[in-house]
Protein backbone atom coordinates (compact mmCIF):
# COMPACT_ATOMS: atom_id res chain seq x y z
CA UNK A 1 0.00 0.00 0.00
CA UNK A 2 1.24 3.39 -0.87
CA UNK A 3 0.24 6.91 -0.01
CA UNK A 4 -1.65 8.75 -2.72
CA UNK A 5 -3.00 12.26 -3.10
CA UNK A 6 -6.78 11.82 -3.10
CA UNK A 7 -9.78 14.08 -2.84
CA UNK A 8 -11.87 13.27 0.24
CA UNK A 9 -14.80 11.88 -1.78
CA UNK A 10 -12.53 9.48 -3.62
CA UNK A 11 -10.72 8.46 -0.44
CA UNK A 12 -14.05 7.75 1.29
CA UNK A 13 -15.26 5.71 -1.71
CA UNK A 14 -12.03 3.68 -1.83
CA UNK A 15 -12.04 3.18 1.94
CA UNK A 16 -15.61 1.86 1.87
CA UNK A 17 -14.75 -0.60 -0.90
CA UNK A 18 -11.60 -1.70 0.95
CA UNK A 19 -13.83 -2.34 3.96
CA UNK A 20 -15.94 -4.68 1.84
CA UNK A 21 -18.76 -2.38 0.69
CA UNK A 22 -20.31 -3.98 -2.38
CA UNK A 23 -23.51 -2.02 -2.80
CA UNK A 24 -24.10 1.69 -3.03
CA UNK A 25 -27.09 3.74 -4.13
CA UNK A 26 -27.37 7.49 -4.33
CA UNK A 27 -28.78 10.58 -5.94
CA UNK A 28 -26.45 13.47 -6.75
CA UNK A 29 -26.36 16.46 -4.43
CA UNK A 30 -23.51 18.77 -3.46
CA UNK A 31 -21.28 18.02 -1.59
CA UNK A 32 -22.15 14.31 -1.70
CA UNK A 33 -22.12 13.98 -5.50
CA UNK A 34 -18.48 12.95 -5.98
CA UNK A 35 -18.80 10.03 -3.55
CA UNK A 36 -21.54 8.67 -5.84
CA UNK A 37 -19.35 9.28 -8.91
CA UNK A 38 -16.46 7.34 -7.46
CA UNK A 39 -18.65 4.48 -6.22
CA UNK A 40 -20.27 4.23 -9.68
CA UNK A 41 -16.82 4.04 -11.24
CA UNK A 42 -15.22 1.65 -8.75
CA UNK A 43 -17.90 -0.82 -7.57
CA UNK A 44 -18.49 -2.77 -10.83
CA UNK A 45 -14.76 -3.59 -10.96
CA UNK A 46 -14.95 -5.43 -7.64
CA UNK A 47 -18.19 -7.28 -8.41
CA UNK A 48 -20.39 -4.77 -6.63
CA UNK A 49 -23.31 -2.66 -7.79
CA UNK A 50 -23.88 1.07 -7.68
CA UNK A 51 -27.37 2.35 -8.41
CA UNK A 52 -28.22 5.81 -9.68
CA UNK A 53 -31.52 5.99 -7.87
CA UNK A 54 -34.46 8.10 -9.06
CA UNK A 55 -34.52 9.88 -5.72
CA UNK A 56 -33.13 9.61 -2.22
CA UNK A 57 -36.27 7.65 -1.28
CA UNK A 58 -35.31 4.89 -3.67
CA UNK A 59 -31.59 5.19 -2.91
CA UNK A 60 -32.15 4.17 0.68
CA UNK A 61 -34.78 1.63 -0.37
CA UNK A 62 -32.26 -0.07 -2.65
CA UNK A 63 -29.61 0.02 0.09
CA UNK A 64 -32.20 -1.48 2.47
CA UNK A 65 -32.80 -4.36 0.05
CA UNK A 66 -29.08 -5.02 -0.42
CA UNK A 67 -28.42 -4.77 3.31
CA UNK A 68 -31.11 -7.40 3.92
CA UNK A 69 -29.01 -9.88 1.93
CA UNK A 70 -26.06 -9.31 4.27
CA UNK A 71 -24.17 -7.37 1.59
CA UNK A 72 -22.13 -4.51 3.08
CA UNK A 73 -24.16 -1.60 1.74
CA UNK A 74 -24.07 2.16 1.95
CA UNK A 75 -25.96 5.19 0.77
CA UNK A 76 -25.79 8.87 1.53
CA UNK A 77 -26.65 12.40 0.57
CA UNK A 78 -26.47 15.81 2.11
CA UNK A 79 -28.85 16.87 4.89
CA UNK A 80 -31.73 17.67 2.55
CA UNK A 81 -31.51 14.24 0.93
CA UNK A 82 -31.16 12.64 4.34
CA UNK A 83 -34.47 14.30 5.26
CA UNK A 84 -36.12 12.33 2.47
CA UNK A 85 -34.51 9.12 3.72
CA UNK A 86 -35.59 9.41 7.34
CA UNK A 87 -38.72 7.27 7.12
CA UNK A 88 -36.75 4.34 5.72
CA UNK A 89 -33.82 4.95 8.04
CA UNK A 90 -36.14 4.63 11.03
CA UNK A 91 -37.66 1.42 9.67
CA UNK A 92 -34.27 -0.09 8.75
CA UNK A 93 -33.25 0.44 12.36
CA UNK A 94 -36.41 -1.27 13.61
CA UNK A 95 -35.73 -4.11 11.15
CA UNK A 96 -32.23 -4.32 12.72
CA UNK A 97 -30.20 -4.09 9.52
CA UNK A 98 -26.60 -2.93 9.11
CA UNK A 99 -26.16 0.06 6.80
CA UNK A 100 -23.63 2.86 6.43
CA UNK A 101 -25.10 6.27 5.64
CA UNK A 102 -22.98 9.25 4.66
CA UNK A 103 -24.20 12.74 5.36
CA UNK A 104 -21.89 15.05 3.45
CA UNK A 105 -23.59 17.93 5.15
CA UNK A 106 -23.73 21.62 4.31
CA UNK A 107 -22.19 23.19 7.41
CA UNK A 108 -23.30 21.65 10.72
CA UNK A 109 -27.02 22.35 10.88
CA UNK A 110 -27.80 18.63 10.62
CA UNK A 111 -26.36 17.70 14.04
CA UNK A 112 -29.82 17.16 15.49
CA UNK A 113 -30.98 15.32 12.37
CA UNK A 114 -27.98 12.98 12.66
CA UNK A 115 -27.90 12.42 16.41
CA UNK A 116 -31.61 12.56 17.27
CA UNK A 117 -32.80 11.00 14.04
CA UNK A 118 -35.35 12.78 11.90
CA UNK A 119 -37.54 9.75 11.57
CA UNK A 120 -40.37 8.30 13.58
CA UNK A 121 -40.19 5.99 16.54
CA UNK A 122 -37.82 5.14 19.33
CA UNK A 123 -34.51 4.47 17.60
CA UNK A 124 -30.87 5.58 17.55
CA UNK A 125 -27.95 5.50 15.15
CA UNK A 126 -24.26 5.54 15.87
CA UNK A 127 -22.85 8.79 14.43
CA UNK A 128 -19.19 9.32 13.57
CA UNK A 129 -17.80 12.74 12.64
CA UNK A 130 -14.32 12.82 11.09
CA UNK A 131 -12.35 16.07 11.12
CA UNK A 132 -10.17 15.24 8.12
CA UNK A 133 -9.76 12.81 5.25
CA UNK A 134 -7.31 10.52 7.03
CA UNK A 135 -9.70 10.12 9.91
CA UNK A 136 -12.64 9.71 7.52
CA UNK A 137 -10.90 6.76 5.87
CA UNK A 138 -10.59 5.04 9.24
CA UNK A 139 -14.08 5.94 10.41
CA UNK A 140 -16.01 4.82 7.31
CA UNK A 141 -14.28 1.47 7.66
CA UNK A 142 -15.13 1.29 11.36
CA UNK A 143 -18.68 2.23 10.41
CA UNK A 144 -19.13 -1.06 8.57
CA UNK A 145 -17.75 -3.04 11.51
CA UNK A 146 -20.05 -1.20 13.93
CA UNK A 147 -23.08 -1.56 11.64
CA UNK A 148 -22.63 -5.33 11.49
CA UNK A 149 -21.66 -5.67 15.15
CA UNK A 150 -24.81 -3.91 16.32
CA UNK A 151 -27.08 -4.61 13.32
CA UNK A 152 -27.87 -0.93 13.23
CA UNK A 153 -27.32 1.88 10.71
CA UNK A 154 -24.21 4.00 11.28
CA UNK A 155 -24.02 7.59 10.05
CA UNK A 156 -20.80 9.25 9.00
CA UNK A 157 -21.12 13.02 9.24
CA UNK A 158 -18.89 14.86 6.77
CA UNK A 159 -19.05 18.19 4.98
CA UNK A 160 -17.96 20.17 1.93
CA UNK A 161 -14.36 20.47 3.13
CA UNK A 162 -14.06 16.75 3.70
CA UNK A 163 -15.55 15.95 0.29
CA UNK A 164 -13.68 18.53 -1.77
CA UNK A 165 -10.21 18.93 -0.33
CA UNK A 166 -7.36 16.54 -1.04
CA UNK A 167 -4.66 14.97 1.07
CA UNK A 168 -2.02 12.28 0.86
CA UNK A 169 -3.60 9.21 2.33
CA UNK A 170 -3.13 5.47 2.47
CA UNK A 171 -6.16 3.28 1.90
CA UNK A 172 -5.62 -0.11 3.48
CA UNK A 173 -8.09 -2.93 3.97
CA UNK A 174 -9.05 -3.03 7.63
CA UNK A 175 -8.16 -6.07 9.70
CA UNK A 176 -10.83 -8.59 8.79
CA UNK A 177 -13.70 -8.59 11.18
CA UNK A 178 -15.96 -11.59 11.32
CA UNK A 179 -19.37 -10.49 10.14
CA UNK A 180 -22.30 -12.56 11.34
CA UNK A 181 -24.78 -12.70 8.49
CA UNK A 182 -26.76 -15.70 9.67
CA UNK A 183 -29.86 -13.46 9.77
CA UNK A 184 -29.48 -12.36 6.12
CA UNK A 185 -31.81 -13.37 3.30
CA UNK A 186 -30.65 -15.51 0.37
CA UNK A 187 -33.77 -17.55 -0.29
CA UNK A 188 -32.36 -20.78 1.03
CA UNK A 189 -34.38 -21.00 4.22
CA UNK A 190 -37.60 -21.18 2.17
CA UNK A 191 -39.58 -24.38 2.51
CA UNK A 192 -37.73 -25.48 5.64
CA UNK A 193 -40.53 -24.44 7.98
CA UNK A 194 -38.21 -21.73 9.32
CA UNK A 195 -38.08 -19.27 6.44
CA UNK A 196 -36.40 -16.03 7.46
CA UNK A 197 -38.24 -12.76 7.89
CA UNK A 198 -36.71 -9.29 8.10
CA UNK A 199 -39.35 -6.80 9.10
CA UNK A 200 -39.52 -3.51 10.98
CA UNK A 201 -42.69 -4.97 12.49
CA UNK A 202 -40.84 -7.88 14.08
CA UNK A 203 -38.86 -10.76 12.66
CA UNK A 204 -40.67 -13.50 14.50
CA UNK A 205 -42.78 -15.91 12.53
CA UNK A 206 -45.93 -16.64 14.46
CA UNK A 207 -46.80 -20.24 13.92
CA UNK A 208 -49.95 -20.38 15.95
CA UNK A 209 -51.68 -17.13 15.18
CA UNK A 210 -51.85 -14.43 12.54
CA UNK A 211 -50.44 -10.92 12.83
CA UNK A 212 -47.43 -9.16 14.31
CA UNK A 213 -46.86 -8.40 17.97
CA UNK A 214 -45.51 -4.86 17.97
CA UNK A 215 -45.32 -4.60 21.74
CA UNK A 216 -42.86 -7.47 21.88
CA UNK A 217 -40.88 -6.27 18.89
CA UNK A 218 -40.48 -2.65 19.97
CA UNK A 219 -39.44 -3.83 23.45
CA UNK A 220 -36.72 -6.02 21.93
CA UNK A 221 -35.57 -3.12 19.71
CA UNK A 222 -35.35 -0.88 22.78
CA UNK A 223 -33.26 -3.51 24.52
CA UNK A 224 -30.90 -3.76 21.55
CA UNK A 225 -30.58 0.04 21.40
CA UNK A 226 -29.76 0.26 25.09
CA UNK A 227 -27.15 -2.48 24.71
CA UNK A 228 -25.62 -0.62 21.75
CA UNK A 229 -25.59 2.72 23.58
CA UNK A 230 -23.82 1.11 26.52
CA UNK A 231 -21.52 -1.05 24.42
CA UNK A 232 -20.10 1.49 21.98
CA UNK A 233 -17.03 3.28 23.28
CA UNK A 234 -17.37 6.83 22.00
CA UNK A 235 -14.27 8.25 20.35
CA UNK A 236 -13.00 11.65 21.39
CA UNK A 237 -9.90 13.81 20.94
CA UNK A 238 -8.74 15.91 23.89
CA UNK A 239 -5.74 18.21 24.11
CA UNK A 240 -4.20 20.21 26.94
CA UNK A 241 -7.20 19.96 29.22
CA UNK A 242 -5.44 19.07 32.49
CA UNK A 243 -4.87 22.64 33.70
CA UNK A 244 -7.33 24.34 31.37
CA UNK A 245 -9.39 27.23 32.70
CA UNK A 246 -11.43 27.37 29.51
CA UNK A 247 -12.21 24.25 27.48
CA UNK A 248 -13.35 24.63 23.86
CA UNK A 249 -15.51 21.91 22.27
CA UNK A 250 -15.96 21.49 18.52
CA UNK A 251 -16.58 18.61 16.09
CA UNK A 252 -15.85 17.79 12.45
CA UNK A 253 -13.92 20.14 10.16
CA UNK A 254 -14.32 23.21 12.46
CA UNK A 255 -12.60 21.12 15.14
CA UNK A 256 -9.32 21.42 13.21
CA UNK A 257 -9.56 25.23 13.09
CA UNK A 258 -10.53 25.43 16.76
CA UNK A 259 -7.64 23.12 17.65
CA UNK A 260 -5.23 25.41 15.79
CA UNK A 261 -6.65 28.43 17.65
CA UNK A 262 -6.30 26.66 21.01
CA UNK A 263 -2.68 25.73 20.20
CA UNK A 264 -1.92 29.33 19.29
CA UNK A 265 -3.41 30.53 22.58
CA UNK A 266 -1.46 27.89 24.52
CA UNK A 267 1.73 29.09 22.83
CA UNK A 268 0.77 32.54 24.07
CA UNK A 269 0.56 31.08 27.61
CA UNK A 270 -3.22 30.96 28.01
CA UNK A 271 -4.54 27.79 29.80
CA UNK A 272 -7.05 26.72 27.16
CA UNK A 273 -8.05 23.11 26.51
CA UNK A 274 -9.63 21.40 23.52
CA UNK A 275 -12.17 18.58 23.19
CA UNK A 276 -13.41 17.12 19.91
CA UNK A 277 -16.19 14.52 20.08
CA UNK A 278 -15.56 12.10 17.20
CA UNK A 279 -18.47 9.82 18.03
CA UNK A 280 -21.52 12.09 18.22
CA UNK A 281 -23.85 9.29 19.30
CA UNK A 282 -23.32 7.84 21.83
CA UNK A 283 -21.95 11.21 22.92
CA UNK A 284 -18.60 11.00 24.78
CA UNK A 285 -20.10 12.59 27.90
CA UNK A 286 -17.62 11.03 30.32
CA UNK A 287 -14.63 12.32 28.38
CA UNK A 288 -16.19 15.79 28.16
CA UNK A 289 -16.82 15.84 31.92
CA UNK A 290 -13.26 14.71 32.60
CA UNK A 291 -11.82 17.33 30.24
CA UNK A 292 -13.93 20.11 31.76
CA UNK A 293 -13.22 19.24 35.39
CA UNK A 294 -11.65 22.30 37.00
CA UNK A 295 -12.46 24.60 34.09
CA UNK A 296 -14.26 27.84 34.91
CA UNK A 297 -15.92 27.99 31.49
CA UNK A 298 -16.71 25.72 28.56
CA UNK A 299 -17.02 27.23 25.08
CA UNK A 300 -18.70 25.41 22.18
CA UNK A 301 -18.01 26.21 18.54
CA UNK A 302 -20.36 24.85 15.88
CA UNK A 303 -21.23 26.11 12.41
CA UNK A 304 -24.92 26.30 13.26
CA UNK A 305 -27.08 28.11 15.79
CA UNK A 306 -26.10 25.78 18.61
CA UNK A 307 -27.06 22.10 18.60
CA UNK A 308 -24.22 19.99 20.04
CA UNK A 309 -24.09 22.52 22.86
CA UNK A 310 -27.15 20.75 24.29
CA UNK A 311 -25.16 17.52 24.59
CA UNK A 312 -22.22 19.39 26.14
CA UNK A 313 -24.56 21.00 28.69
CA UNK A 314 -26.15 17.62 29.46
CA UNK A 315 -22.67 16.20 30.05
CA UNK A 316 -21.35 19.09 32.16
CA UNK A 317 -24.63 19.36 34.11
CA UNK A 318 -24.03 22.85 35.44
CA UNK A 319 -20.51 22.23 36.76
CA UNK A 320 -19.29 25.14 34.60
CA UNK A 321 -21.04 27.74 32.45
CA UNK A 322 -21.30 26.58 28.82
CA UNK A 323 -20.99 29.40 26.30
CA UNK A 324 -21.73 29.32 22.59
CA UNK A 325 -19.04 30.87 20.42
CA UNK A 326 -20.23 29.49 17.07
CA UNK A 327 -22.92 30.59 14.67
CA UNK A 328 -24.01 29.84 11.14
CA UNK A 329 -21.25 30.87 8.75
CA UNK A 330 -21.77 30.38 5.03
CA UNK A 331 -20.75 31.88 1.74
CA UNK A 332 -23.45 32.66 -0.83
CA UNK A 333 -23.52 29.07 -2.14
CA UNK A 334 -24.85 27.71 1.15
CA UNK A 335 -22.71 24.61 0.70
CA UNK A 336 -20.93 25.07 4.00
CA UNK A 337 -17.87 27.11 3.07
CA UNK A 338 -17.45 29.13 6.26
CA UNK A 339 -15.73 32.53 6.44
CA UNK A 340 -15.60 32.08 10.22
CA UNK A 341 -13.24 29.13 9.89
CA UNK A 342 -10.31 31.46 10.38
CA UNK A 343 -7.91 30.87 13.25
CA UNK A 344 -7.73 34.61 14.07
CA UNK A 345 -11.53 34.87 14.28
CA UNK A 346 -11.75 31.79 16.50
CA UNK A 347 -8.84 32.95 18.70
CA UNK A 348 -10.61 36.22 19.36
CA UNK A 349 -13.82 34.46 20.39
CA UNK A 350 -11.98 32.11 22.76
CA UNK A 351 -9.95 34.99 24.24
CA UNK A 352 -13.17 36.85 24.90
CA UNK A 353 -14.54 33.91 26.93
CA UNK A 354 -11.21 33.64 28.77
CA UNK A 355 -11.25 37.34 29.65
CA UNK A 356 -14.66 37.10 31.41
Amino acid at each position, binding site marked *: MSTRLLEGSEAIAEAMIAAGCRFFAGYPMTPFTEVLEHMARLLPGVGGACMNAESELEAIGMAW*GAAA*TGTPAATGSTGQGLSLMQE*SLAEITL*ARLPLVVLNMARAQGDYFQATRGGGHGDYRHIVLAPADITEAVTLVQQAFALAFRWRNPVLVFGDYYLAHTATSVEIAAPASDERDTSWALDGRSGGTGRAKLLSPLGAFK*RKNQAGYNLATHYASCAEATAEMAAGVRPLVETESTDDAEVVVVAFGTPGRYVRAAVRALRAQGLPIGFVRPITLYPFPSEAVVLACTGARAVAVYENNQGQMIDDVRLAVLGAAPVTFIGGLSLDSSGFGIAPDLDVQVLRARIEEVFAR
Partner: protein
Amino acid sequence: MTEHEGHNIVPSGGPPSQPATLVRDFTPDLIDVGTHHLCPGCGEPVAMRAAVEAVSELGLVQRTIGVFGIGCYTAFSNNLDVEVLQALHGRAPSLATGVKRAKPDAFVFTVQGDGDMVNEGLQEVIHTAARGENVTCIMLNNGVFGETGGHMTATTVIGQRTKNTLDGRTAEDHGHPILLANMLAGIDGSAYVARGAVNNAHNVALTKQMITTAFERQVTGLGFTFVEILTMCPTGWFIETTEAPEYLADNLAAVHQIGVLKDVARTDA
Protein backbone atom coordinates in the same frame (compact mmCIF):
# COMPACT_ATOMS: atom_id res chain seq x y z
CA MET B 1 -74.59 -12.88 11.67
CA THR B 2 -76.64 -11.64 8.73
CA GLU B 3 -79.89 -13.33 7.84
CA HIS B 4 -80.69 -13.57 4.17
CA GLU B 5 -84.08 -14.22 2.76
CA GLY B 6 -84.42 -17.85 1.77
CA HIS B 7 -81.50 -18.99 3.90
CA ASN B 8 -82.54 -20.41 7.22
CA ILE B 9 -79.98 -19.99 9.88
CA VAL B 10 -80.66 -22.58 12.54
CA PRO B 11 -80.56 -20.99 15.98
CA SER B 12 -78.62 -23.10 18.41
CA GLY B 13 -77.72 -22.53 22.02
CA GLY B 14 -75.94 -25.83 22.40
CA PRO B 15 -72.93 -27.56 20.91
CA PRO B 16 -73.15 -29.07 17.40
CA SER B 17 -74.49 -32.60 17.29
CA GLN B 18 -71.36 -33.86 15.54
CA PRO B 19 -67.77 -32.70 15.93
CA ALA B 20 -66.18 -30.98 12.92
CA THR B 21 -64.01 -33.28 10.83
CA LEU B 22 -61.12 -32.16 8.68
CA VAL B 23 -61.83 -33.55 5.25
CA ARG B 24 -58.73 -32.03 3.67
CA ASP B 25 -56.36 -29.21 4.53
CA PHE B 26 -56.40 -26.84 1.59
CA THR B 27 -53.71 -24.53 3.01
CA PRO B 28 -50.93 -24.23 0.42
CA ASP B 29 -47.56 -25.68 1.47
CA LEU B 30 -45.90 -22.31 1.77
CA ILE B 31 -48.49 -20.72 4.05
CA ASP B 32 -47.59 -21.57 7.65
CA VAL B 33 -50.80 -20.35 9.23
CA GLY B 34 -54.07 -20.68 7.37
CA THR B 35 -55.92 -18.33 9.64
CA HIS B 36 -55.74 -14.60 9.06
CA HIS B 37 -57.45 -11.42 10.15
CA LEU B 38 -58.75 -10.42 6.75
CA CYS B 39 -62.48 -9.87 6.21
CA PRO B 40 -64.83 -12.51 4.84
CA GLY B 41 -65.04 -12.17 1.07
CA CYS B 42 -61.61 -10.56 0.71
CA GLY B 43 -59.86 -11.44 -2.55
CA GLU B 44 -56.33 -11.01 -1.26
CA PRO B 45 -55.89 -14.49 0.28
CA VAL B 46 -56.96 -16.02 -3.04
CA ALA B 47 -54.35 -13.94 -4.87
CA MET B 48 -51.68 -14.78 -2.28
CA ARG B 49 -52.47 -18.42 -2.66
CA ALA B 50 -51.99 -18.23 -6.43
CA ALA B 51 -48.62 -16.51 -5.95
CA VAL B 52 -47.19 -18.97 -3.43
CA GLU B 53 -48.50 -21.95 -5.41
CA ALA B 54 -46.67 -20.61 -8.47
CA VAL B 55 -43.45 -20.26 -6.46
CA SER B 56 -43.85 -23.82 -5.29
CA GLU B 57 -44.80 -25.32 -8.65
CA LEU B 58 -41.89 -23.66 -10.46
CA GLY B 59 -39.45 -25.09 -7.91
CA LEU B 60 -38.34 -21.64 -6.77
CA VAL B 61 -38.94 -22.05 -3.04
CA GLN B 62 -35.30 -22.04 -1.98
CA ARG B 63 -34.38 -19.11 -4.20
CA THR B 64 -37.30 -16.86 -3.36
CA ILE B 65 -37.29 -13.59 -1.49
CA GLY B 66 -40.69 -11.89 -1.27
CA VAL B 67 -40.85 -8.16 -0.57
CA PHE B 68 -44.10 -6.98 0.99
CA GLY B 69 -45.68 -3.56 1.09
CA ILE B 70 -48.11 -2.35 3.72
CA GLY B 71 -51.79 -3.15 3.47
CA CYS B 72 -54.20 -5.88 4.52
CA TYR B 73 -52.02 -8.44 2.69
CA THR B 74 -49.20 -7.64 5.13
CA ALA B 75 -51.01 -10.23 7.27
CA PHE B 76 -49.16 -12.77 5.12
CA SER B 77 -45.66 -11.35 5.40
CA ASN B 78 -44.91 -13.22 8.62
CA ASN B 79 -46.59 -16.51 7.98
CA LEU B 80 -45.13 -17.70 4.69
CA ASP B 81 -42.53 -20.42 4.40
CA VAL B 82 -40.55 -18.35 1.90
CA GLU B 83 -38.10 -15.64 2.92
CA VAL B 84 -39.72 -12.24 3.30
CA LEU B 85 -38.39 -8.72 3.48
CA GLN B 86 -41.03 -6.36 4.83
CA ALA B 87 -40.87 -2.90 3.23
CA LEU B 88 -42.41 0.43 4.05
CA HIS B 89 -45.64 1.58 2.42
CA GLY B 90 -44.82 2.36 -1.21
CA ARG B 91 -41.19 1.24 -1.18
CA ALA B 92 -41.18 -2.45 -2.13
CA PRO B 93 -39.81 -2.04 -5.70
CA SER B 94 -36.65 -0.23 -4.56
CA LEU B 95 -36.03 -2.86 -1.86
CA ALA B 96 -36.60 -5.60 -4.42
CA THR B 97 -34.08 -3.84 -6.70
CA GLY B 98 -31.47 -3.84 -3.93
CA VAL B 99 -32.11 -7.51 -3.18
CA LYS B 100 -31.89 -8.53 -6.83
CA ARG B 101 -28.76 -6.49 -7.58
CA ALA B 102 -27.04 -7.84 -4.47
CA LYS B 103 -28.22 -11.44 -5.07
CA PRO B 104 -28.83 -11.84 -8.83
CA ASP B 105 -29.58 -15.56 -8.40
CA ALA B 106 -32.48 -14.91 -6.04
CA PHE B 107 -36.04 -15.03 -7.33
CA VAL B 108 -37.63 -11.79 -6.20
CA PHE B 109 -41.27 -10.77 -6.16
CA THR B 110 -43.15 -7.96 -4.45
CA VAL B 111 -46.69 -7.84 -3.11
CA GLN B 112 -48.31 -4.41 -2.90
CA GLY B 113 -51.78 -2.97 -3.00
CA ASP B 114 -53.10 -0.15 -5.16
CA GLY B 115 -52.71 2.36 -2.33
CA ASP B 116 -49.15 1.22 -1.72
CA MET B 117 -48.04 1.04 -5.34
CA VAL B 118 -50.10 3.62 -7.23
CA ASN B 119 -50.57 6.24 -4.52
CA GLU B 120 -47.65 6.18 -2.14
CA GLY B 121 -44.87 4.85 -4.33
CA LEU B 122 -45.87 5.23 -7.98
CA GLN B 123 -42.47 6.40 -9.18
CA GLU B 124 -40.82 3.30 -7.70
CA VAL B 125 -42.60 0.83 -9.96
CA ILE B 126 -42.26 3.05 -13.04
CA HIS B 127 -38.49 3.38 -12.65
CA THR B 128 -38.13 -0.29 -11.76
CA ALA B 129 -39.95 -1.16 -14.98
CA ALA B 130 -37.87 1.31 -17.00
CA ARG B 131 -34.64 -0.17 -15.63
CA GLY B 132 -35.88 -3.56 -16.80
CA GLU B 133 -35.20 -4.73 -13.29
CA ASN B 134 -35.48 -8.51 -13.31
CA VAL B 135 -38.12 -8.77 -10.58
CA THR B 136 -41.86 -9.46 -10.53
CA CYS B 137 -44.21 -6.93 -8.97
CA ILE B 138 -47.69 -8.10 -7.99
CA MET B 139 -50.30 -5.44 -7.34
CA LEU B 140 -53.50 -6.39 -5.52
CA ASN B 141 -55.96 -3.79 -6.80
CA ASN B 142 -59.26 -3.39 -4.98
CA GLY B 143 -59.65 0.32 -5.66
CA VAL B 144 -59.66 1.32 -2.00
CA PHE B 145 -57.41 1.69 0.99
CA GLY B 146 -58.83 -1.44 2.60
CA GLU B 147 -56.77 -1.42 5.76
CA THR B 148 -57.87 2.07 6.77
CA GLY B 149 -61.48 1.18 6.06
CA GLY B 150 -62.36 2.04 2.47
CA HIS B 151 -60.86 5.30 1.26
CA MET B 152 -60.25 6.47 -2.30
CA THR B 153 -57.03 5.41 -4.02
CA ALA B 154 -55.57 6.41 -7.37
CA THR B 155 -57.24 3.37 -8.97
CA THR B 156 -60.76 3.98 -7.58
CA VAL B 157 -63.07 4.05 -10.60
CA ILE B 158 -65.37 6.95 -11.48
CA GLY B 159 -68.62 6.60 -9.57
CA GLN B 160 -67.18 4.35 -6.86
CA ARG B 161 -68.30 5.25 -3.35
CA THR B 162 -65.56 5.40 -0.76
CA LYS B 163 -65.36 6.94 2.70
CA ASN B 164 -63.90 10.11 1.28
CA THR B 165 -65.94 10.15 -1.93
CA LEU B 166 -69.32 9.51 -0.34
CA ASP B 167 -71.33 10.34 -3.45
CA GLY B 168 -68.94 8.47 -5.70
CA ARG B 169 -65.65 9.49 -7.30
CA THR B 170 -66.02 12.22 -9.90
CA ALA B 171 -63.37 13.27 -12.40
CA GLU B 172 -64.11 16.93 -11.65
CA ASP B 173 -63.47 16.67 -7.94
CA HIS B 174 -61.13 13.70 -7.59
CA GLY B 175 -59.44 13.19 -10.93
CA HIS B 176 -59.23 10.09 -13.05
CA PRO B 177 -58.13 6.59 -12.06
CA ILE B 178 -54.61 5.56 -13.06
CA LEU B 179 -54.56 2.36 -15.10
CA LEU B 180 -51.18 1.14 -13.93
CA ALA B 181 -50.81 -2.02 -15.99
CA ASN B 182 -51.56 -0.07 -19.18
CA MET B 183 -48.98 2.51 -18.18
CA LEU B 184 -46.28 -0.08 -17.44
CA ALA B 185 -46.94 -1.96 -20.67
CA GLY B 186 -45.90 1.18 -22.55
CA ILE B 187 -42.51 1.35 -20.88
CA ASP B 188 -39.41 -0.14 -22.49
CA GLY B 189 -37.94 -2.48 -19.91
CA SER B 190 -41.16 -4.26 -18.98
CA ALA B 191 -41.17 -7.81 -20.34
CA TYR B 192 -44.54 -9.07 -19.20
CA VAL B 193 -47.56 -7.10 -18.04
CA ALA B 194 -50.95 -8.60 -17.27
CA ARG B 195 -54.09 -7.86 -15.31
CA GLY B 196 -56.12 -10.63 -13.74
CA ALA B 197 -58.85 -10.93 -11.14
CA VAL B 198 -60.00 -13.37 -8.48
CA ASN B 199 -63.77 -12.85 -8.64
CA ASN B 200 -64.58 -16.28 -10.12
CA ALA B 201 -62.93 -19.64 -10.66
CA HIS B 202 -62.10 -18.92 -14.30
CA ASN B 203 -60.37 -15.66 -13.45
CA VAL B 204 -58.48 -17.26 -10.55
CA ALA B 205 -57.12 -19.89 -12.96
CA LEU B 206 -56.28 -17.19 -15.50
CA THR B 207 -54.52 -15.09 -12.87
CA LYS B 208 -52.54 -18.06 -11.65
CA GLN B 209 -51.39 -18.60 -15.24
CA MET B 210 -50.39 -14.92 -15.50
CA ILE B 211 -48.37 -15.12 -12.29
CA THR B 212 -46.71 -18.32 -13.47
CA THR B 213 -45.80 -16.75 -16.81
CA ALA B 214 -44.44 -13.61 -15.14
CA PHE B 215 -42.31 -15.73 -12.82
CA GLU B 216 -41.03 -17.77 -15.77
CA ARG B 217 -40.05 -14.57 -17.61
CA GLN B 218 -38.06 -13.45 -14.57
CA VAL B 219 -36.31 -16.82 -14.36
CA THR B 220 -35.41 -16.49 -18.05
CA GLY B 221 -34.07 -13.02 -17.29
CA LEU B 222 -36.24 -11.07 -19.70
CA GLY B 223 -36.69 -8.02 -17.49
CA PHE B 224 -39.43 -6.44 -15.42
CA THR B 225 -42.64 -8.42 -14.99
CA PHE B 226 -45.92 -7.20 -13.56
CA VAL B 227 -49.22 -8.79 -12.64
CA GLU B 228 -52.08 -6.63 -11.42
CA ILE B 229 -54.83 -8.61 -9.71
CA LEU B 230 -58.30 -7.17 -9.14
CA THR B 231 -59.45 -8.32 -5.70
CA MET B 232 -62.76 -8.06 -3.85
CA CYS B 233 -63.10 -5.76 -0.87
CA PRO B 234 -66.73 -5.97 0.23
CA THR B 235 -65.91 -4.15 3.47
CA GLY B 236 -64.31 -1.22 1.70
CA TRP B 237 -66.96 -1.21 -1.02
CA PHE B 238 -69.78 -1.17 1.57
CA ILE B 239 -71.64 -4.04 -0.09
CA GLU B 240 -72.64 -7.56 0.87
CA THR B 241 -69.87 -10.14 0.68
CA THR B 242 -71.85 -12.17 -1.84
CA GLU B 243 -72.23 -9.18 -4.15
CA ALA B 244 -68.52 -8.39 -4.33
CA PRO B 245 -67.51 -10.67 -7.25
CA GLU B 246 -70.19 -9.16 -9.46
CA TYR B 247 -69.39 -5.64 -8.27
CA LEU B 248 -65.77 -6.25 -9.26
CA ALA B 249 -66.79 -7.36 -12.76
CA ASP B 250 -69.21 -4.47 -13.27
CA ASN B 251 -67.12 -1.70 -11.84
CA LEU B 252 -63.37 -2.30 -11.41
CA ALA B 253 -62.91 -4.70 -14.34
CA ALA B 254 -64.96 -2.44 -16.61
CA VAL B 255 -62.20 0.16 -16.32
CA HIS B 256 -59.14 -1.89 -15.36
CA GLN B 257 -59.63 -4.47 -18.08
CA ILE B 258 -58.46 -8.04 -17.64
CA GLY B 259 -55.91 -9.47 -20.06
CA VAL B 260 -52.27 -9.84 -21.02
CA LEU B 261 -51.08 -6.38 -22.06
CA LYS B 262 -47.51 -7.23 -22.97
CA ASP B 263 -45.33 -10.30 -23.33
CA VAL B 264 -42.00 -9.81 -25.08
CA ALA B 265 -41.55 -13.58 -25.28
CA ARG B 266 -44.58 -13.88 -27.53
CA THR B 267 -44.85 -12.05 -30.82
CA ASP B 268 -48.63 -12.54 -30.98
CA ALA B 269 -49.30 -10.89 -27.58
